[in-house]
């Protein structure tokens, strides 16, 4: 059409229809600084991780020892796997407050069914986690319950169920190979850490390279528009709860295997750690924004901080205070960024 200077183009001149230069949204600094700022915010977890690592290596005694690295990575990886699942869920604009309860249930199911053989038992534990996610997805999408209330309710129910089936006691692993997954080692990394990195890479691939990943971003960004584009919004949203449940299940089985026992009371602080790491990793509480690699870095950052505080002998109570302060400041910055995005 550009090479067709007929009446339409004349009227362009007459009615003053002119090309409009592209511009950024309101509220962003223009040009390079705006891009740098956005990059820093999107990848803040990597920056924080770099700073924390530098400090820890230089100033924290015993941090950079093989034994400590092995222990630390295993420790943050189990909660980290849950963070990855929560990242997917939060990008789709949901949340699961009951990931800790699901973790405990999966461990107990794993331990209770160990006589079926460890692989089968592990699968059952993981499926129990996915099942809780399925229930959450069903309650939220079909029964239209707010996801905070829904996951809080299933959390309580799952907790009760876990204590009932475990008879309120810790179940010890006696089957051959029960503890293998928690302690097998490759180089300086144990199996949970390898699983964490592998799940991170796979999930990141799904989120960036597949249509399903795009759909999770889409429904979190604008579920009306996604519906109009013909997406099955309920099914896609429910699936994100299943992913969170699945990851909690995997974490529960790994934790039980590592401890060679399943304690029905574990997982009380899991949701706090996992949600903090996810939000530090750049995932918004308001849906549609986030990335899995950021969450991985967020997990590692919190893991390094927790480990360093332990090595420095800071009391557990101060650690809670510090973790709470980190979470609040991250949430505040997320709320601020979200306000900016919406007004842009």
């Amino acid at each position: 059409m550009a090479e067709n200077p007929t009446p339409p183009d004349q009227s362009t001149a007459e009615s003053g229809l002119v090309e409009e230069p592209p511009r950024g949204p309101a509220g962003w600094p223009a040009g390079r600084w705006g891009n740098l700022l956005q990059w820093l915010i999107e990848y803040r977890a990597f920056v924080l991780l770099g700073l924390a690592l530098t400090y820890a290596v230089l100033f924290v005694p015993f941090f950079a020892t093989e034994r400590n690295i092995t222990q630390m990575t295993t420790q943050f990886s189990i909660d980290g796997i849950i963070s990855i699942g929560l990242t997917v869920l939060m990008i789709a604009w949901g949340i699961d407050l009951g990931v800790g309860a699901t973790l405990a249930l999966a461990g107990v199911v794993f331990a209770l069914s160990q006589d079926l053989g460890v692989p089968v038992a592990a699968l059952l534990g993981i499926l129990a986690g996915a099942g809780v996610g399925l229930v959450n997805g069903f309650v939220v999408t079909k029964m239209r319950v707010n996801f905070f209330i829904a996951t809080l309710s299933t959390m309580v129910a799952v907790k009760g169920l876990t204590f009932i089936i475990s008879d309120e006691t810790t179940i010890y692993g006696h089957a051959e190979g029960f503890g293998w997954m928690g302690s097998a080692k490759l180089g300086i990394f144990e199996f949970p850490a390898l699983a964490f990195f592998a799940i991170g890479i796979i999930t990141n691939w799904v989120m960036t390279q597949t249509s399903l990943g795009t759909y999770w971003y889409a429904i979190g960004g604008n579920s009306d528009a996604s519906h109009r584009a013909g997406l099955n919004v309920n099914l896609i949203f429910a699936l994100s709860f299943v992913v969170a449940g699945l990851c909690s299940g995997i974490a529960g089985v790994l934790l039980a295997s590592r401890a060679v026992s399943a304690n029905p009371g574990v997982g009380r602080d899991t949701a706090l750690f996992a949600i903090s790491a996810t939000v530090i990793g750049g995932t918004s509480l308001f849906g549609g924004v986030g990335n899995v690699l950021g969450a991985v870095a967020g997990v590692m950052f919190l893991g390094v901080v927790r480990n360093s505080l332990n090595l420095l002998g800071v009391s557990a109570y101060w650690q809670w205070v510090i973790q709470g302060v980190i979470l609040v400041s991250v949430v505040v910055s997320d709320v601020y960024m979200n306000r900016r995005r919406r007004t842009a």
Partner: protein
Amino acid sequence: MESNYIVEMKGISKRFGSVQALNQVDLELREGEILGLVGDNAAGKSTLMKILSGAHVADSGQILINGEEVSIRDPRDARACGIEMIYQDLALCNNLDVARNIFLGREYTRGLPFLSILDKKKMYAESAELLARLRINISSPRLKVERMSGGQRQMVAAAKAIAFDAKILLMDEPTAALGVREANTLLRLIRDLRDSGHSVVLITQRVPDILAIGDRVMVLKGGRRQGVLNVSEVGLDDVVELIVRGRAGAESEEDALEYLSFG
């Protein structure tokens, strides 16, 4: 039966509770024209377009596409007829880039059926081509919608609609939230679409817009059609007169003046 109309709506009526939103309204849209749909608030413009796009179902009346009667009961039926509504509140995901928005739900994929891998290269290439063809001034199809201006977003919404063979575009107040320059750019795009054979119904409060680019303008008032005017034969005053007074001419001069000052 007239067959040079791509869309004919005949005797459309719609009632919401006690409100008669539309009363025996006819509409004809020719192939390759821009039809303005104007009228006061609550005149029934949006309701009529929502019926054509399947968001509402009429209580009575017929819809004909290319002379054949069709049943449009939901947006999917409308899409099958080549009708696409571009909504005022924008049916875009701001957190996705241009290409992902254009192809949302209809991605090019390959590989596994349960986890289909996006053919991003093809999607970006086709999006860039589409933007260029429509002369839409957006630097890259990788740009996220949230980093774009209101006018650019409207244009992406239009590109998304026509990327998949929509022949009939329904636009509800597309320029309402835009500045003058952006509105003009968007109007130019609408005219380009018409020139490439698309038919457009443009709901607008800004009568001068439709006089600048439209072919005909249809006036609704109180859920009834007041008349259809050829843009080349009338001026702003004629259209406003019809909007304010209707055929009978009932209301005061001040209303007309108020309306004129809006335009």
